[in-house]
């Protein structure tokens, strides 16, 4: 994405860089040795045609002598070498061959007027690259010095603009056995894990002026917990501390304690997909409440039914907030015959109300609210199954997802789907 943006920006600004060098004529070579060699960086023309380096000023015979050389021939970098970085002496001197610094990998091609080098991965916007061309390594060598120049595409962005837009759960009070937090951003972020940039701070004392960082609160893991578009990061609390009774929990306790005030402190140094820091840090304050360690019970839900013939929203209210991320895909409505009711999903009241505004008006008849088995609350409790299941005496775990509520488990794709029937237009 970034590279494409860079290309687009470059197109608007015209060709970036031009000549760099005029070859030194030693008086002994062919006429071609007097021709000026020019290194240019051609901006991306399209997604399919990324930016490339061109060396022009070679005559037809020189180009022809190179035309049979394969695109990835190992000989190319001794003639035309692109390396990362523009500072220092790399690329200068009497010889550009050798592996230090390594040549940027790519494909070489010879056109009617130039040698082209297209990198394996698009050039990074703003990054300097040194391009060195050694005329003495032409099949018919020119007795001339190495041509060397630094090229770069314009940077995509230079000023920070990305901010944190939301933190979920958004409620002012969250259970002390909270398992995960979502952090949403205004623009795509980089690939880095959040652990270096997020702190859990306990706030206490008069005016909340005493702050203590709770160390080891989060899962020490660098797995990719980004959403596909990198605008949401999932922060997991260390489950070993959240889970009641196992050693880390017994040793250090839960990261959150009911009755205490906390701040999730997000540092501005966290970098976005353009490598720029956040425009500002972010502090999300909340109070820890009692643990919620019970399963989700469908019979506790209430459904506010819209009138037939309208496109009014259907609203399902839960007695406690459910998971902000999973709710968006774990609930749906089906009409008679299993036909899905299409519409717009909404979350309200800090994720304790789910709404569906249908595309077409409601019709009188029977419907099902369909809940997928992976629906969880932010503590990991599922329908009919608490995160921490009690199995006394080491017996095999019971299938505790059987009905017992007004939800009826069905079988779709070998997993249980819960259906809560309701009617529109009926008494």
């Amino acid at each position, binding site marked *: 994405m970034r590279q494409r943006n860079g290309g687009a920006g470059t197109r608007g600004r015209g060709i970036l860089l031009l000549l760099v060098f005029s070859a030194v004529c030693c008086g002994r070579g062919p006429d071609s040795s007097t021709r000026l060699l020019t290194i240019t960086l051609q901006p991306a023309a399209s997604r399919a045609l990324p930016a490339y380096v061109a060396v022009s000023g070679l005559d037809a015979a020189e180009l022809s002598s190179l035309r049979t050389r394969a695109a990835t021939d190992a000989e190319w970098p001794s003639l035309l070498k692109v390396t990362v970085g523009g500072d220092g002496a790399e690329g200068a001197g009497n010889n550009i061959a050798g592996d230090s610094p390594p040549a940027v990998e790519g494909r070489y091609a010879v056109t009617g007027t130039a040698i082209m080098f297209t990198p394996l991965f698009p050039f990074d916007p703003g990054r300097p690259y040194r391009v060195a061309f050694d005329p003495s390594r032409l099949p018919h060598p020119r007795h001339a010095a190495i041509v060397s120049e630094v090229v770069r595409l314009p940077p995509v962005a230079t000023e920070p603009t990305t901010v944190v837009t939301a933190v979920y759960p958004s409620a002012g009070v969250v259970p002390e056995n909270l398992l995960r937090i979502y952090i949403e951003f205004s623009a795509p972020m980089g690939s880095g894990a959040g652990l270096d940039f997020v702190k859990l701070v306990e706030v206490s004392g008069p005016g909340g002026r005493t702050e203590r960082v709770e160390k080891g609160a989060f899962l020490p893991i660098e797995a990719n917990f980004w959403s596909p*578009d990198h605008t949401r990061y999932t922060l997991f609390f260390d*489950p070993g501390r959240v889970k009641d009774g196992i050693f880390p929990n017994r040793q250090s306790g839960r990261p959150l304690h009911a009755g205490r005030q906390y701040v999730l402190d997000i540092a501005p140094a966290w970098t976005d997909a353009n490598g720029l820091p956040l425009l500002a840090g972010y502090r999300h304050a909340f109070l820890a409440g009692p643990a919620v360690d019970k399963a989700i019970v469908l019979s506790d839900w209430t459904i506010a039914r819209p009138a037939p013939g309208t496109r009014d929203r259907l609203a399902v209210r839960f007695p406690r907030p459910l998971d902000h991320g999973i709710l968006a*895909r774990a609930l749906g*409505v089906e009409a008679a015959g299993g036909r899905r009711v299409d519409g717009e*999903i909404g979350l309200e009241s800090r994720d304790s109300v789910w709404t569906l505004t249908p595309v077409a008006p409601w019709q009188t008849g029977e419907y099902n609210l369909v809940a997928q088995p992976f629906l969880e609350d932010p503590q990991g409790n599922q329908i009919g199954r608490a995160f921490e299941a009690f199995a006394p005496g080491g017996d095999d775990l*019971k299938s505790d997802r059987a009905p017992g509520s007004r939800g009826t488990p069905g079988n779709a794709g070998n997993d249980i789907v819960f259906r809560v029937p309701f009617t529109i237009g009926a008494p």
Partner: protein
Amino acid sequence: MRRSVKVAAVLAFLALTVYGPTASTVTPGAAAAAGPQLQSIGPLAFGPDGVMYAADSLAGKIYALDLGAQANGGAPGTANVANITQKIAAMLGTDSLQVSVTDLAVDARTHNSFVSIMRGQGPAARPALLRVDGAGKITTIDTSALQFTSVDLPNLPAGSSEGRNQRAQAITQVKYANGRVWASGLSNEEFASKLWSVAYPFSKADAGTSVEIYHGNHQQLETRAPMYAFIPYTIGNEPYVIGAYLCTPLVKFPVAALKPTSGKPYRGTTIGEFGAGSRPIDMILYKKNGREFLLMANTTRGVMKIPTEGFATAAPITMPVTSETGGVPFEKVPSMARVQQLDLLDATHSVVLAGSNATGLDLQAVELP
């Protein structure tokens, strides 16, 4: 694969959940295609005949890649390469902060090492695969030229097409054993342990099986903590999986006992507690002086060496442990520090990527402890 894909004999020891027809891009008997469209790459594993299994978490696929001629041509073995991330970054036209190593795997035929990486940041990051040979030469593998077959991981169903689906999954480990490819993974949303396996060669008839494994930590409290690393293992001629979870321990479970997710959740048997605040990275099995060991790299607790002779008879940990560690004995290997990736190089050496993302990773062959 250059050979045609044959219908796999369905192994009878698994009668697990079969997911819907999302299965395979390869029909039984069809020839493999060329040029996988990788969106991401890693973890990696090698199977018999040099087939490389590469997970693509973004696409939700496991690829079986035939490296063909690109597997060969290098000096045998793997030589040490200092700050390999910086060298790879330079080859790929960027700096080491833009290179994220996703896995390391050794081709047992040549003992060359393969490193999978993501180049770039955010949604624009792109995959790359590189080979390191016995002379320390790094070669970029042109994946667009590879023959491949692939299989889709089961997707969780969407409840509504209108909801915003921000779910992503990270495949944490891929292994091959006994005709099946195994994969473990993590989600950025639901917190559930799923171990998935599919017969290889991939066939449309078999979309794979997935089993939910409860983490039987002390028999009273069971949770669905995700398994992070695992290794197929045999006890008394029976296939087992030895797994390591995020928040504690080493667990074993017999493959034959795994049952579908509908109904009873399956519970593994905890045989070791190795301390908290760390997560497993990789496991390898090796023999030394007539004894077999499991070598496990962890994020903050270093590398651990665990004799396997106790795996068959280890008493299940059924009570809350009162000390930080318990169960099967292990010893720390302090000489192997800051290991980020680990694989078996040969009978006497492992190969590791060690260091930190900030300062760069070194590729090193290390004698097995």
